[in-house]
């Protein structure tokens, strides 16, 4: 336990308890922080998109102020989603082989296609149909570099007549309907990459894709709450409390479902207590105490569950400022909690030997590809991209 903390500030040589296979006695787990970030970022994309679909498909009018922000968030994060995966490859220059010569029985092989489908066929197209009328308008009213950009984005289609705009809406709606299963596919599929590894009792689990989808929705909605509140604060605009309350409600119910399914997973593990259970138990109790018991369960799930649950019951009696604080802290805690969950799955799954007789330690470096610095950069990158998007596509008057 103390190693996890001391590793941050000083070099700790890897050590092993019990017996680990000789090939497992490496300094670092094979999949490090990059593979922790990959499902995290992908999950945020899927969740933010589902959030936007609530407006588009399920016609939740109260959420309109965050519709475009959610779409842009999904887009910015999607652009960064494959980066950690790419960087961790031993031969990133051969990455296109995954798409050129995919091996169809591999859960990883289809990711390229699912990703491309989601990026090109769903998100990009939907955004374009959403923004087409605005692009035409902005390209006429804006000059300079920005004007040229907007003109480029119109792709020469300048018809903003009523039937044309109606058609835009119709196509956007269809894309959104297609987009929901696609978002589930994108992230459920990431869950399957882990769930399909039967060699690893921590991963190999039929519930894994569902757990990933649920936690993705939770983290995505939390990210939208976070982004909306931060953006409003930066722009000195008042937060639409009705919108925030509705977001908080969806966040609460998604979190309830997520907690239920993850709880079910644990109940099943504990009750069936299969071959690998002893080592899993040790991991949960000792090795992952900070990230699992504290990070994921206590602060990432229970505290927000209580905060948001209280707000569902006695919302009207809590003053607005207090409510905003509660929503914001819940969103922050959930974002950290889901990151901890990804850590527990990816790193936790590699901290015990497949001989089920030993435990490894993880010494995370500061520099290098699998280091803290890289992790922080990759986590900040989507926010940088999102800032540019917001500057270009989300004017203050147009925050709908």
């Amino acid at each position: 336990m103390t190693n996890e903390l001391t590793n941050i500030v000083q070099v700790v040589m890897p050590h092993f308890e019990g017996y680990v296979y000789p090939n497992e006695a490496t300094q670092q787990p094979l999949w490090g922080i990059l593979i922790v970030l990959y499902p995290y970022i992908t999950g945020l994309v899927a969740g933010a998109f589902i959030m936007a679909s609530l407006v588009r498909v399920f016609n939740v009018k109260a959420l309109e102020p965050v519709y475009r922000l959610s779409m842009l968030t999904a887009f910015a994060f999607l652009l960064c989603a494959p980066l950690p995966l790419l960087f961790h490859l031993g031969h990133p220059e051969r990455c296109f082989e995954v798409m050129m010569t995919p091996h169809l029985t591999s859960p990883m092989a289809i990711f390229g296609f699912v990703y491309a489908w989601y990026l090109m066929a769903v998100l990009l197209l939907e955004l374009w149909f959403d923004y087409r009328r605005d692009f035409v308008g902005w390209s006429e009213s804006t000059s300079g570099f920005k004007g040229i950009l907007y003109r480029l984005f119109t792709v020469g289609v300048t018809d903003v007549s009523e039937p044309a705009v109606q058609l835009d809406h119709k196509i956007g709606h269809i894309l959104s309907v297609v987009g929901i299963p696609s978002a589930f596919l994108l992230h459920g599929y990431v869950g399957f990459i882990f769930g399909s590894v039967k060699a690893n009792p921590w991963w190999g689990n039929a519930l894994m894709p569902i757990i990933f989808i649920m936690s993705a929705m939770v983290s995505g909605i939390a990210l939208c709450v976070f982004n909306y509140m931060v953006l409003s604060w930066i722009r000195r605009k008042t937060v639409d409390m009705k919108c925030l309350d509705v977001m908080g409600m969806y966040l609460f119910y998604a979190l309830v479902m997520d907690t239920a399914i993850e709880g079910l997973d644990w109940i099943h593990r504990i009750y069936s207590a299969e071959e690998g259970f002893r080592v899993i138990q040790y991991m949960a109790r000792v090795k992952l105490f900070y990230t699992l018991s504290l990070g994921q369960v206590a602060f990432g799930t229970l505290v927000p569950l209580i905060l948001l649950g209280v707000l569902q019951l006695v919302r009207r009696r809590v003053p607005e400022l207090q409510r905003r604080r509660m929503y914001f802290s819940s969103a922050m805690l959930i974002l950290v909690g889901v990151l901890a969950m990804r850590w527990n799955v990816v790193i936790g799954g590699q901290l015990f030997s497949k001989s089920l007789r030993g435990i490894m330690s993880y010494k995370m470096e500061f520099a290098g590809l699998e280091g803290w610095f890289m992790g922080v950069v990759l986590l900040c990158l989507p926010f940088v991209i999102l800032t540019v998007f917001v500057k270009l596509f989300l004017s203050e008057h147009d925050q709908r």
Partner: protein
Amino acid sequence: MNKPVSRRSLLGKIGAAVAGVLAAPAAKAAKAVVQRVLVTAEAPKGYDPTQHKWVMAIDANRCIGCGFCAEACKKENHVPEGPYFRTWVERYIITKPKPGSSAARGETLVDCPNGGINGYPEAPVPKEDIQHSFFVPKLCNLCQHSPCTQVCPVGATFDAPDGAVLIDPTYCIGCGFCIQACPYGCRFLSPVTKTAEKCTLCYHRITRGLKPACVEVCPTQARIFGDLKHPVPDDPIQQFYQNNLVEALKPHLGTEPRVFYAGIDKEVR
């Protein structure tokens, strides 16, 4: 009016179905050709992988834990220094139960310092407390349903027709998925080539009529190697199957290993 059109479309559909049926074996044949080319990359010209079925078996009763096999493998295959092994030898010590504990057995202690190449330290428990002690050589289990080849996103690792499970190092993208998928810890990511590596049964040797390096150096014939398609008189591998009740590692995972063990305990995994 509609009839000729529908007939044409029907013919088209039949044609497509026939083309599909014809294309399937063609695709299979093309895959076989590709595999053959890949297989023969390390093999001499004229070697036909479809004419052999290589297999290894381990008689743990005979293993003395000298570690020559692990050392020979490292040298023969230029396996990088450090925690990287294509084969290794584990030592198992099962202690006697504590007096009055009413248990059948005591603890199971396993170790394998440096793959067993430099021998083993003194047993961590006094000799009189040991119930059983034995050595288990490990290598690629040559699974019939190999999870490692199943998960490779590009098909760089594959089951060769002659029973070896190989990796094309010029094609592997180094994602590490196969290493995660192997239940036996037999694969590693080479720090030199940045690709996955594993036991090839010394493919460059067996395709030239030699034995794998580990089998060659084993002083007690604990490792038995053979070709199931070409049994020789008094074939050691056939005798092994004849004379032993065998076990495979982690059978519950359904990988169907083709490497059989004789003389191992339930604690081995």
